[in-house]
Each structure stands twice: as structure tokens, then as C-alpha cells.
């Protein structure tokens, strides 16, 4: 007759413990940390301004330079330092990623909470809206959006969040459905608690760790989305992002010129960020996808 319930308050502790033990979790977190530091210290790390056109000692534009001690990853066809672009690209990537993750977490959690707790028509309406969001094909949506709205970073964030919130919403909802049945929730009702009180003092704290975990996966995905948008040419042209770098390289026919130093690094960075998201979901699998308890 020992304790049969899993206290969900231990979730935060479990997350920390798994980070220490599971290689996937550790990998995912490390990647995020490295990029976060890069973004924060971009001004210190990058040798040049990313948009600055650089000149060789002889006065010519330093275009298409191969990697050398002065230009670690070479330069673009317009004479800009690739490495500096990469470093500042991290900043833009993280801004997009974190903002989108924040919106997704907030919207997804609120929707999941209300949907799961109240059920009935509230649940139906919210989940159907979520279904619509999930069924919108990504690329056409972006193209249409770009046609109507001026391409800037924040519109990208909104576009990405609008498509990504339903998954978090669903997961939170299913957590809420099971939490709603707990005796201590009923006990709160019997004590005279209002619905909103129960929702935000009893249920929400137990759901937030999952929301944040999903949010961290969204970071990688949002970056990938933004990169796709930029690569297709629908992104903002005034900020340097990895997607912008890829597009720039593509348009300048970098591949045929063998300028691997230009497009491979940014591609690798995008891939790492998305992979980090997957590593996190794999490493924290037992928390995100709990096995059925008896």
C-alpha cells in the first residue's frame, strides 16, 4: 500500500536529473547553451560587422575570399565576412526561436488548460481551431502571408507560432484531463474554490514543465521555419539570418563555384538547432510521453 502516485512537482527535479544522465538530453541542452552564448556575445565574438563590405589591402572588394586567418570562413560574393554573419545569424535565430517558443507556450498552455478543464463546447471550439491551424499547408501559408504583410522578423514569429501552437495545446490538454480527476482537485471544489482558482493554482503548475519542454522543441523548429522563409526569399532582407545566408549563397551560385565555406556552416547550424529539439524530446522521453500507469 505504498504511495502509488507520481508527484508531478518532482518534474523539475527529474528534468535536471535526466540532463545529467541521458546523453541525448545533455546534447540537446548543450547545443542550445552554446548557441545562446554565441548570440549573447555576438558583438565580442564576431570580428566584423556582418553587413560591412570588406576591402583587401590593395583596395579591391574582398569578395569570394577563401577561408584564411583574416576571414575564418571566407567572404561572400559582396565581400562580407561569413563567420561574422554566422555569429550574428545565431542572434537572429535565437530571437525568432525564443519568441516563437514563448508565444507557442503561452497560447498552447492557455488553450490546453481551458480546453481540458471545461470540456464541452469550449473544448470543441478550441480543438477545431487547432485542427485548422494544423491542416494549413506550411509553404503556401507563408507565401500568402508574405504577399500581404511586410516581411519582417516579427511577422515571421507570428506566422510560425500560428502554425505550431496546436501540438502544445493538445499535450497540455491531455495532461489537464488526467489532472482534473485527481482527488485534490475535487477537494478544492468541495472547499469552495472557483474554477479559475483551481485551474491556475492546482492544475497549471503541474502542466508548465511539459509546456516548457515542448517550447524548447519549438525553438529549433521555429528557426528552421524562419530559415525556410528566408531561403525562399520571403524573409526580411535587413537582418542577417542563416536562411538569408543560404539564400545569398544560392543566388550567387556558390555551389558551382565550390564556395563550400559559405553555405555549409549556416546549414549545419540550422541542422544543429533542429536536432537539439529532437534530442531534447528523445532525452526527456519518459517525461514527455509517459508510459501508461496501471
Amino acid at each position, binding site marked *: 500500500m*505504498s504511495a502509488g502516485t507520481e508527484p508531478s512537482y518532482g518534474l523539475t527535479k527529474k528534468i535536471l536529473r535526466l540532463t545529467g544522465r541521458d546523453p541525448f538530453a545533455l546534447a540537446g541542452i548543450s547545443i542550445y547553451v552554446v548557441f545562446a552564448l554565441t548570440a549573447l556575445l555576438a558583438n565580442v565574438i564576431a570580428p566584423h560587422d556582418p553587413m560591412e563590405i570588406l576591402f583587401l589591402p590593395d583596395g579591391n572588394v574582398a569578395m569570394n575570399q577563401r577561408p584564411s586567418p583574416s576571414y575564418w570562413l571566407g567572404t561572400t560574393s559582396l565581400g562580407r565576412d561569413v563567420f561574422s554573419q554566422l555569429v550574428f545569424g545565431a542572434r537572429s535565430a535565437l530571437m525568432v526561436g525564443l519568441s516563437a517558443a514563448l508565444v507557442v507556450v503561452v497560447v498552447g498552455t492557455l488553450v490546453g488548460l481551458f480546453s481540458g478543464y471545461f470540456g464541452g463546447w469550449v473544448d470543441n471550439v478550441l480543438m477545431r481551431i487547432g485542427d485548422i491551424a494544423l491542416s494549413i499547408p506550411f509553404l503556401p501559408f507563408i507565401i500568402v502571408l508574405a504577399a500581404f504583410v511586410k516581411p519582417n522578423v516579427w511577422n515571421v514569429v507570428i506566422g510560425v507560432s500560428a502554425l505550431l501552437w496546436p501540438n502544445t495545446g493538445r499535450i497540455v490538454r491531455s495532461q489537464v484531463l488526467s489532472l482534473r480527476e485527481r482527488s485534490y482537485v475535487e477537494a478544492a471544489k468541495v472547499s469552495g474554490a472557483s474554477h479559475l482558482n483551481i485551474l491556475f493554482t492546482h492544475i497549471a503548475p503541474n502542466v508548465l514543465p511539459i509546456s516548457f519542454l515542448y517550447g524548447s522543441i519549438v525553438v529549433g523548429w521555429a528557426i528552421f521555419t524562419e530559415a525556410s522563409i528566408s531561403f525562399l526569399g520571403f524573409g526580411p532582407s535587413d537582418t542577417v539570418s542563416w536562411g538569408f545566408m543560404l539564400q545569398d549563397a544560392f543566388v550567387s551560385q556558390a555551389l558551382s563555384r565550390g564556395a563550400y565555406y559559405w553555405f555549409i556552416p549556416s546549414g549545419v547550424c540550422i541542422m544543429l538547432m533542429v536536432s537539439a529539439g529532437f534530442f531534447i524530446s528523445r532525452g526527456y522521453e519518459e517525461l514527455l510521453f509517459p508510459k501508461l500507469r496501471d
Partner: protein
Amino acid sequence: MSLLQVEDLALDYRSHRGTVHALDGVSLSLAAGQVLGLVGESGCGKTSLARALTGVPPGNARITRGRILWQGQDLLALSEAEHKARRWRDFAFIPQSAMNALDPVQRVSAQLMEVLRERGGLAQAQALAHVDELFDQVGIDRKRTADYPHQFSGGMRQRISIAMALALKPQLLIADEPVTALDVIVQRQILDLIVALRRQLQLSMIMVTHDVSVVAYVCDTVMVMYAGQMVEQGSVGQVLGSPLHPYTMGLTRAFPDLRQDVGTLRHIEGSPPDLRAPPSGCRFAARCPFATDTCRQSPPPMLEVSQGSRRVACWRSNEAEALRAQWSDALP
């Protein structure tokens, strides 16, 4: 030669919160055809003991000393393969909540067949016939062998678990809390089934339970456990009728008998000690109304009483009769 003999068994669990000494020097002996009850509250080590006997302790458990002799052979010295050969065939284990451990996506007949064919090496046709027999034995309609576990009630699923355990005709059945989660009437029906099967198949059994009444109904001998140690052992009549250890006195008195006058229940205050740092003296001293300084300082030795048929670990066991009379007055 006794069927099963456990000598001075000690078992630890290692967790990130420290090492729990779940068992500390437990010994028992079971003769063929005997039914032994292991009784005690949660955390006393009875389930750890049962699982150690089957050779499948949980991953973080380590047996630190002792021997488990099955028909004279030390099970702990065997390799996993040799041990596996004995599981299901010589002894079978029905874990706690076995009724919830049935595979929900496999038909019941398939699950029984798996045991019969993989472990028993029976041919398909033989195994199928045997499944029907097993269902008859545990009192379920033969027509339901093709059903899924969720189509059965809790009591029937427990019967299926019993059938699975008996599939290869083991000599010893170890059941951990077999009727705890069941309602009164179903509980009685399952216990009656166990009693009947024991008679028909001449089974030896070990029943692990926190419920003294189950022991009184089914068992011949009983071992009372507390905080990883044995405190009293003997025949059911002796131990429950005239307990020698204060803890046993508490257990029997805490159980209200429907057929007697209501009176007032006497309960034991407090909780068992933390097994990560067990006390140096008698482990029950903190809760015992009769504890003396000796009890608190030194662990009581295991004494043999009544020509060796009973054992008790208590400094004041020779005063048991007087203490029993005082039990009601001694508590708050």
C-alpha cells in the same frame, strides 16, 4: 529435507536517496505441502523477500548475504539460465496487482499458451487442451479463453493470473497480496479457490499480505515481519491465538472482529523506522508500549520456543501472557 529454506538473507536497495536495508537477516523454512503467510505492514520487507525467492529482484536490489536453498540447492549460486529453468516450473510467482499486469492487447489464451509453450515446451495441441483445463481449474467459463483481459472483472483476472502461475504445475506458489484490491465477496471467492487448489494439487504456498485475516483463513504457519526483520514465527493458531511479540499483539487487536462485541479498537501509534538508518536496538522499541532500555539499546535475539516450533525476537517474550492482558491498557 524442507522444500525451501532461507538462511540469514539480507537485501539492500540502492537509490539516489541512499541505501535502504530492506531485509536484514531473515530465515525461514517451508515444508512440502505447507502454506506460509508473510505478514506485516508496507515496507516491512515481505515483498522484497518474495521477489528475492523468485530470483527476479528489481534492478537496484542487491542480496548482500544469505542463502536460498530450494530442495537443498542454493538458488543464489545458480546462473541466470539455470534459475530461469526453475521459474514457472518449480515455483511460480503471482506479483502484486497481477490482474493489472496482463497484456491488454493479447488474448488470454495466447498469454497462457506462451507460458505453456515457451517455458513448458508443450506442443500446440497439448497446450490448447491444457488452457481449457486451467480455466476449469480456476473456475472460468471455457468459452471465454479467447477474450481480452479488459473484458474480465478484477476477480476473474486474478483467477487468470493464478491459472498462469499454475500452468506448469509448480510445487511452490508465491502470491503477493493476491486479494488486496478486491471486494469482500470476490476476495472470499478467490481465497476459497486458493484453498481448494491447494488441496487438489498439494501445493506449497507462500502468501504475502498485510491482512492478518487472510493469513488466518488460508495459512498453516505464519511469519510476522517488521522493518526488514522477522519478529515472530509459528503456526497460525499459536501466533494469532497467543502472540508473543507486542507487534503481533497489535496486529491482531487492531483487527475488529465482526462476530464479537464492538468495543474499542487499539491501534499502534507511529510509523516504522527509516530503513536507510535503522535503530540499533529493537526496531519496534519506539512504538512498543512495553519497551525497556534494554530493548532500545540491544537488538533482541531470536529465541526458539515450544520445542522449536515457534520463534520470536523479543526481550520480554517470557512475559507474553501478562503483556497480552495489559495490551489494551498500555496504549493511549
